[in-house]
Each structure stands twice: as C-alpha cells, then as structure tokens.
C-alpha cells in the first residue's frame, strides 16, 4: 500500500545541515498494523509526516497504491490526504469552539458528502465510541482519554485507508493507554491499516510489525506482536 525507496529528509538551519531520515525503505501493506518505535529524535514523527503527505522528502520516493506521490503538487497531495489518510496526535488538536459532534464532522465538510450522509456517518461514530451523550459538549471539558476518542472518531469520519498516529497515547494514564490501544487493535482487525509512532514499549507491542528507528535509520524490523 505504502512503499518508500531511499527516502531521506534533510533539515537545514543556517549553515547547519542534519539528516533526520536516511535511506528509509519500508513497505506497509493493506490491513497491517505497523509501529515505528525509537527514542526521541530518531525520526518517527518526521517519517509519519512524510508518509502522511504533510511534509515533503529531500530525496527518495514514496509510492501510494502503485502511484508515485513524491513530486505531486500541494493540491494533489492535499486531495490524497483528504480522501485516504487520517491522523492522531499526542496533543489531540480538537477545536475548542466546536462541540463533539462538530469536531467529528469537520473533515466531512471538505468532502462532497450531503448533509444527511454526514449526519449518518457522525452518528455511527458517536455510537461506536459511546460518545452520543456528549455530542453537544465542548471538548475542553473532558479528560485526555475522551478527547482522544473524539479525535479517533474524527479521524475515522472520512473513512481513511490508513490511520497514522503520532504518540496518541502520550498523554493518557496507563489504564487509558491500554483501553485506547485496544480500540486501535479492534479497528485493525476490522481491516483498517494503522501506522503508529511511539517510544512506549507497551504501545509498541500492539503492532503486528515493529520498525525500530535510531538517528534516522531503520535499525531492525520485527514482525511478532508483543
């Protein structure tokens, strides 16, 4: 589904240059649950940004479903991201001025769906994540776990082909972490492709395959869950 060839990312600040990612060759197949593990500064977040088309590589190729997407225009990358990709963040990033229902509906506003269709999809997600009773509440009132569930529902509202998560459990307590990872596991079992970046060992063990990064290089790849 997603393939990279010799992917590199170079950051420049003044005269200083630093490779954050070097020669990354990875393949993520449909329905897989991949975890990018590694300490802070290993390049996990940058890699997710490149795979999720929010950032552009310095060199190398990224293929999405048999199409090379490396050199695409901002507009085309935007469309692919809108139609196929969703994100979760450690900082959650819900919009405080919108209630739970509206936050979940947000991505659908940029899709051609009818109002009725949007409502059906949002209601389904509210029901699935047991958020129906909170639909009119503003997210600022909730704890991080509920907020992250809302963010997950929002991510799924546009039926993405792949869900990227950048430390989505970083702000959760250990019990909440388990519960949230369980939600992701269930989604994966339902056929969603998931790629998660984390430095947490507990989180990492939920993945089918762990890609270990260190200083911008892929160090090892293991395929056992747990």
């Amino acid at each position, binding site marked *: 589904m997603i393939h990279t060839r010799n992917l590199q990312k170079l950051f420049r600040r003044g005269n200083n240059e630093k490779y954050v990612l070097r020669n990354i060759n990875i393949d993520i197949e449909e329905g897989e649950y991949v975890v990018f593990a590694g300490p802070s500064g290993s390049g996990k977040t940058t890699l997710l940004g490149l795979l999720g088309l929010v950032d552009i590589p310095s060199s190398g190729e990224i293929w999405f479903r048999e199409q090379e997407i490396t050199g695409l225009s901002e507009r085309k990358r935007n469309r692919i991201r809108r139609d196929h990709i969703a994100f979760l*963040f450690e900082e959650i990033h819900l919009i405080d001025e919108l209630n739970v229902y509206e936050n979940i509906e947000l991505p659908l506003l940029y899709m051609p769906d009818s109002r009725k269709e949007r409502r059906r999809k949002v209601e389904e997600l509210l029901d699935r994540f047991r958020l129906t009773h909170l639909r009119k509440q503003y997210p600022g009132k909730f704890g991080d776990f509920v907020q992250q569930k809302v963010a997950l529902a929002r991510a799924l509202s546009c039926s993405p082909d792949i869900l990227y998560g950048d430390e989505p459990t970083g702000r959760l307590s250990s019990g909440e972490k388990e519960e949230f990872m369980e939600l992701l596991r269930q989604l994966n079992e339902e056929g969603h492709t998931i790629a998660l970046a984390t430095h947490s060992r507990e989180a990492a063990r939920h993945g089918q395959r762990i890609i270990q990064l260190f200083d911008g290089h892929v160090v090892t790849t293991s395929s056992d869950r747990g």
Partner: protein
Amino acid sequence: MRILNYIKISLRTLFLHRGFSLLTLLGLSVGIAMSIFVLEYVFFQFSFDKHFDRYQDMYRVVTSGNMENEQVDAALSPMVLASRLKQYPEVESATRIVDVGEVPVRSDFASSYESEILYADSAFFDVFSTSFLLGGPQKTFPDSSCVIISRAAASRLFGDRNPIGQELRFDQDDTYIVKGVFEDVPQNSHLQYDFVLPFSVMEQQLRNYYGDSFSRMIESWFSLVCYVYVKMEPGADVHKLEGAFADEIKAEMEEEDMAIFSGERKTNLHFSFQPLHHIYLFSSQDFEIGKTTNKAYVFIFLGVAFFILLVTAFNFMNLTTARALDRAREAGVRRLFGARRFHLAGQFISEAVLFSLVALFFGLVLVELLLPVFNKLFLVEFFDRSYRQSLDFPLVLTVTLAVGLLSGIYPAFVFSRIKAFHLQSGYRRFSAYPGLWVRGLLVMTQVFVAVFVSTAAVGMYRQLSYVNKKDPGFDIDQVGILERAGHLGSKSETMYREIENLDITEDVSRLYFKPGEPVTIMSFSNTEDSSQLFLFEVYPVDSSFFHTIGVKAEKGTEHLFGSGDIVVNRQAAQMLGNDVIGRKIYTVAREAGDRMEFGIQGVVPDIHFSGWKHSLRPAVYIYAGPEEKLTSLLIRFKKGQWPQTHQLLNDLWGQSKTGIPFKAVSFRQKNRDFYSEDYRYMSLAWAFAVLVIIIATLGMTGLVSFLLATRQQELYLRKITGFPDFHNIRILFSGFFLFVLLGVLMAFPVSGSMLSDWSQAFVVRYEVDYFCFVLPALLMLLLAGVLVFLGARRLLNKISLHQF
C-alpha cells in the same frame, strides 16, 4: 455548508472568549459608528444645492477684478446685470436677490424675529425650483405688497390657519399679503429663505434713500449691491457666454470708469459664472449671502473617516491574531483534513465580516445614543425631514463590509499560510516573529492617528485661546451689545435713556453698523479732484462711541461733535500721511453735488471688531446723522457685571412690550462667536481624539497580549534564572515601545503641518509649541507602559512549571 460552519465557529468564538470579543466588538462598534457619522457628514457637505431641479444649469454670477487698486472678489453683482443677461438666449431666467437681514415679523396671531428674508425678482421661483403647498408661482408678485413664505414660517406666524390672503407686518409697519406657501428649504441649501418679498420694494426703498442718484446707481456696473442667480438653457456654454458678455459691456464699463475718476482708468471688473452646487464648498468670495464652509474641513474629515476605518480594521487584525496559537491549531487541523488555502482565507474573512455585522448592531445603538451630541457638534440635524430621514443603509452596509473585509485580510493571509505540517513541527515558531513586525506596524499606525488627532485638538485649543485672549484694541470685557434695538422704532430712544440711567452702566452708544458683519467700504480722496484715492471701511457712530468702548485718541480727539466730523484709525492715518488732524477728505462721486466733505478730528488705535480672522483695514468713524438706520445699542457696563447688566436689559426690554425677542450679548461672547465654527471643529477633534485613543489602546492591548502569548516561555526562563521582573519586562517590550515611539514621532510633523495650515485662517497665529505634542505623546507612552506592566505582572504571577 462550510460557510455555516464558519459562522458557527465565529459565533462560538464570540461567546466562548467573551472578554476578548468584547474588546474586539468595542473597537469595531466605535469605529463603525464614528465612520458612519463622519461619512454622513461628508456626504451632507457634498449634497449642497443638489436638490434643485437641473441644478447643473444653475449659476451665481460673481464679480472679480480691481477697484482702485484693491482686489475685489465679491459674491455681489451690480443691479443692471440680471436684465442684461436675460437678453441672451442661453439664459433661461435670471433673478436678483438682496438679503433683508433680521427683522421682527408680525401676523394677527403671532410675532417672531426672522432672519431668512430675501427681496427677489419674480423670476426667483423659475430659477429655484420650488414646490408650492398653497398659492403658486404663476401669480407670484402681481404687485409690490405680496410675500411668499415657507411652511415653517407659516406655522410660526399662523399656526394651523390658512395664511393665504392674510397680512404680515415687517419691521415697523411694512405690510404684505401672503400669496403663497412653499415647502421649507432643505438644510443642505446655501441660500436659506423663509420669506420672499418683491424686489420692487427694495428698489423703492433705494429710490427714497438715494434720491436723484438712484437711477445712476441701478445702471452702474460698479455698484455691487445684489446677488444674481441664473438658470441656463440645458447644454448652454457658460464660458462662451462669459466671454461674449464681457465683450459687450466693455465699452460701457470704460465709459463709467472714466466719468467717475476724471478720465483715469481705476476699475477693472469682470463677471463670472459660479456653479450653484460649488458655492457652499468651494466659494471663497467676500460678502457671501448664505452658508459656506472651509472645504479643508470636509477633506480632513474624509481623511479622518478613512483613518478611523483603517485603525478599526487594524485593531481587529491585532486582536484576532493575538490569539494566534489557538487559531493556528485550528487552521492546521483544517488543513490536515483537506481544507485548502482559500477555504481558510474564506473562513477568516467571513469571521471578520460576521464580527463587523454584530459590531454594526452595537454601532447603530451608539449612533442612536450619540446622535444629539453629533447634531450639536456638526450643527447639522442628521436625519431630519428636509435632508435625510434615516441612515443611508447602503452606506452603512458598505462601511461595515469594508471594515469586515479589511479586518479579515491580514488574519486570512496569516492563517491560510499554515500547513498541516505545522501541526507536527509546532506553530509557535510560525506565528511569533514574522507577525510581530506586521502587528507592530499596525499599532504604530494607530498610535500615529491617535497622537495626530489629539495634537490637532490641543493645538486648536491653544490657537483659539490665544485669539480669544489677544487684545482687540478696546475694552472687550466691559462692552455688551443690545441687538435688535433698531427695530424698536420710536421706543429705541426711550430704551437708550433708560439704559443710560442704570447704575450698572457707564455709557451707552448708538450703533449704525453690525459688529462682525461686513461694513460699507467707500472711496475717499484727500483732494477735491479725486486724484488720489483711498478705500476705507466706514463705521457710522455717535458721539459717545469711543468712550463706550474705552478707546482714546492717539492724536487729536476721539470726540465726534456733528455731521462732517471724522476720526480715522492708525492705518488710515498712515495712508493719508503726516499731520492728518484738521485735514479734509472727500467721498468720490460722478457728480460734484454728490460729493461729501469730512474734517479729521483725531486718530484712534486699530480696533478689531470682527475677531482675528479678518485683516484689519484702514477705517474711518463718521458721525452718523438721523438718516442712518440704528442697528443696536452698545453698552459699557461696570467691570465683571455682565450677568446683572444682561438681566436689567432683559427687564427693560420686557417692559417695552414690542414682542421682539430680546438679545443681548457681551462682546467677549460675541468675539467667541466669531470662531464658532472653529470651536465646533475643535470639539469634534477632541471627541475623535478620545475615541481614537480608545481604539489605539485596544490595539496596544492586542500587541501586548500577543507578545505575552508568544514569549511567555522566555519570560518564565528569565524569571527563574533570577532576572528582576522590571528587567525582563524591559527586554521583552523594548520592541513594542519602539513601535509606539515611532508612531508618536511620525505624528509630530504631520500634525504640525496640519495645524500650521489650519491656523492660516487667522490673522494672528499662536506659534505651535512643544506643549501641543508633549501631552498626547506622554499620554500614549504612559498608556503603553501601563498596559505592559499590567499584562506582564498578570503573567508573571500566574506562571508555573506546568505550562512548559
């Protein structure tokens, strides 16, 4: 559907961030309300005389050129002009007009004191399209005993009765029959009239006054005594007509000139056509008949409206982008989920427009509340029956949408640049420094406008105080004027005696001119053959005049004992040469019998009766005979006792039972009234200054909030490393103060030059000094300091490790 989402978010933002919204809305509402007022006023100024049918074909004929080496630019024309112009096919109709001045008017039911009275030819109503409520123009002025009156005058004098056929008595005993009632003249007409009397009445009065020389006077090209208005045929070329007319009358004017001045050419006049709708705003003629204004004020106001809109929009930008971090996150999330740049730009612009619309509501409330104040300040009844009955809603909407769009542009530009990438990499870096410059420049502009307007207000105050305090050459604090005494008829002499006998008065004098209004200017010669001519202002006075105003002669005596006695002012004496006392001067006339002779009794200092906006001219004070028409009584009262004198005069006036309204004013007050328009604009400048300072303060609040939001981490780190708070604040806000200081410094030359231009209207000028600048500058710097101090203290007190 996205637009609904934008509106929803905007409304939520408004309610969830109430404090912030209140500040934003306050700035926007004040800005919108002010702009509405100023623009309404400016449009009102431009609307003058455009309500007449075919106003583009209407002109006033004005006179310019030289008369005995004096430049003439008069709104007046000679009597003969109108009838001669009518002979041209391009001229559809022409009318002569003379302003009657103030007189008491009585009907059988009521009396009033009226000032909007004209003598006019019957063609008046052909030139000035008029809507008649009763009677009609076809039978206008069948004889010399009719009068046409306005609806308001009819209501004042007849109440609900039908005035047609009723009598009206003007002044003492001139009686006229009402033949028609016309709709009131709108406020935006330079020519205001409630009564139109037949011109033939005026001609008869002149005939009685001038006797044999009347026929020469009405045929003279040099006797500028009436106003001439013409209506041209559609499409007529006025410039061609001006040229043709000048050619036609050239020989006649030369002949008259030679006859008066013993074969010498001394006068060269020409007549030009002034478009009717330019008179109010652009005319700079002497002897205006009606309202005119200084066009500089209108353009200054247009500039002020533009600046207010700009400053208001800047304020919104500043306050919106002060919450940069929140808004950047929202923009980032939207980008991540597929929003394109124009989606975000559209969102921020629609939010600004929505805020403006909400602010419009509060703005309209402000307009309603402030309407009486502004009516008073602008001296315009905004939204009355005759001009406009309500706000111009297309204008209001245009202003609001303009503010909305202008306000939304910068936030739209800033936030639409955000990419999904910034969500990951952190938008703190994105939103901080590039914005500081733009925001700083916005605040600098606001401070500039605030200091400019407040400096202008302080400067105007200083200049007006200066001219008010400047010695006018007579005892201004001990002289009052009892106006309208001339209309008392035979009772005026009784009144004179009674005032003379009051303990509180020191002297009384009969006045035969109106202080502050143009006086007659006549040619005099110091030889019988008129070989050397002088133009002097002529003040007809009585023997107690100089004692009443507290002026003593520098040479000779100030006492005028009888007809033929004359006293000259210092300037006239200088023109006449050395040793003027005892010398004779003569008036200039075509016939030797019409010439008058005067003996100079003394030289008095220069006296400024008309304030410091008119240059002092050489003047003569002649002993007035019984043929002169009394205007008012001048009273010298004991120092500091004007209120008591006023009360006693009021009592005396009441006892005379004439029905004429009482009006007495101290000269100090009258002097102030000469600058009433300037005082009004000064009050407006103060009002604007306060509001612009409020807006600038909001703008600075926005910048301080932004700096605190983006640099709180730095502030915290400085604090925990032991830097004293004062030091931290100074380092953090040095940039901010730089912008404020730049705004202050930029305002100095601009307001200095504006004040200098404005004060050109005065003969004496107060030198613009540091005080005008220092006060507003200190105020802005102080406000900036307080805002920084309060903001920083709040942040430093609540700072905790959890935030990082």
